[in-house]
């Protein structure tokens, strides 16, 4: 009898240890056939999406974020510099444009992939421009490691993907153009409602909450339009390639050699 009791207690102890281990280790389940078939019910976002740059230009003048005074002063300085032909080189180091600037001011195409529990955005630039948006119901981590694109969770409200992003590095620009922007300086929260607006136009309705540089949340809609022709498919876009040009070494091997650039981002022109 006593042996049974001991065995029972041991079993309970082991089971409780197992339960503890389970709460520590969350495993992403393998997708089921239903998970895959449910994807067919989502709106069709296939194809190549290009940004409407003319609208970006317009909003740089008509939809100014509610900057705090120091940020507003910097933006006005940058706008004057740009007008004078000395654009501030915000994005000249080949680091990703990051969130939210990718959505706000990019000139490059992207594609959007649906897989079970995930929406993935892939950009045609920087070599590593990528957003992973988890739609599997997970919460944000309590203390996410800051990254260029942050930690994004999403859910579908009808045909609209609602995305919540935190954990963006404080250095990421809150930019209104390629030459005017302020680092978000941390604690940024971005809410997006992404949806088709007509057959081949995608709208990203953004709300940017950046308490260290804005006096209140800022709303903007960014427009992308679709191409389906195969000749317009996304191509590789390794930004650092522009540091170099193809050449031969002394053995006749194909190599890259560094080339010179000006501070504004262009190659050094002949004098």
């Amino acid at each position, binding site marked *: 009898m006593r042996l049974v009791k001991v065995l029972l207690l041991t079993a309970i102890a082991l089971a409780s240890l197992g339960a503890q281990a389970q709460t520590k280790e969350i495993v992403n389940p393998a997708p089921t056939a239903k998970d895959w078939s449910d994807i067919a019910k989502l709106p069709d976002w296939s194809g190549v999406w290009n940004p409407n740059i003319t609208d970006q230009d317009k909003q740089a003048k008509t939809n100014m974020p509610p900057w705090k005074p120091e940020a507003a002063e910097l933006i006005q*300085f940058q706008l004057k510099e740009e007008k004078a032909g000395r654009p501030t*080189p915000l994005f000249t*180091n080949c680091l990703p444009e990051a969130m939210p600037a990718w959505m706000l001011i990019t000139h490059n195409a992207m594609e959007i992939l649906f897989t079970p529990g995930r929406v993935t955005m892939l950009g045609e630039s920087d070599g590593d421009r990528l957003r992973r948006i988890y739609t599997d119901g997970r919460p944000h981590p309590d203390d996410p490691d800051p990254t260029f694109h942050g930690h994004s969770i999403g859910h579908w409200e009808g045909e609209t993907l609602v995305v919540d992003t935190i954990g963006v590095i404080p250095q990421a620009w809150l930019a209104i153009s390629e030459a005017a922007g302020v680092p978000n300086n941390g604690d940024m929260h971005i809410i997006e409602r992404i949806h088709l607006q007509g057959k081949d136009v995608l709208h990203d309705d953004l709300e940017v909450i950046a308490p260290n540089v804005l006096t209140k949340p800022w709303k903007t809609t960014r427009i992308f339009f679709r191409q389906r022709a195969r000749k317009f498919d996304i*191509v590789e876009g390794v930004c650092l390639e522009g540091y170099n040009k193809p050449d031969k070494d002394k053995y006749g091997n194909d190599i890259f050699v560094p080339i010179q*650039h000006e501070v504004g981002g262009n190659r050094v*022109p002949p004098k």
Partner: protein
Amino acid sequence: MRSLLGKIIAAGLIFTGLGLLNISAWAHHSTTMFDHATSVTITGEVKEVQWTNPHVAIFIYGTVKDGEAPALWLMEMTSPGNLIRAGGWSRNAVKKGDKVVVNFSPLRSGDKGGALKKITLVDSGKSLTADIRAQERPNLQEEESK
């Protein structure tokens, strides 16, 4: 205490200094260093094409003004992907040795560089644009097939 603006200007000066040492990298940048209100034409021969991200460049040896000695000029453009979508471009659309006429916005600095607007290949008469905003409509292939 230094203002944020003061710090940014100081950082900018340091950055400019580094740039003069050619350490600067580059990527997605504004193009107001080019005078977009001015259009200049160069006639000459393609010396080199750098079909690379993030910006394609073409070097042209040619003449801007009649009577001037020919010289080497640098033409900057957008990315290969954007150029393909702007219409007609490919890696081999313009090649070394091609005779060309190019319309461009010149650098404000007076150096021999510009932002290419349109290039015409003399032998075929074919013209290509590098205007990224020329493609801001969906389904361009449907327009082309009409």
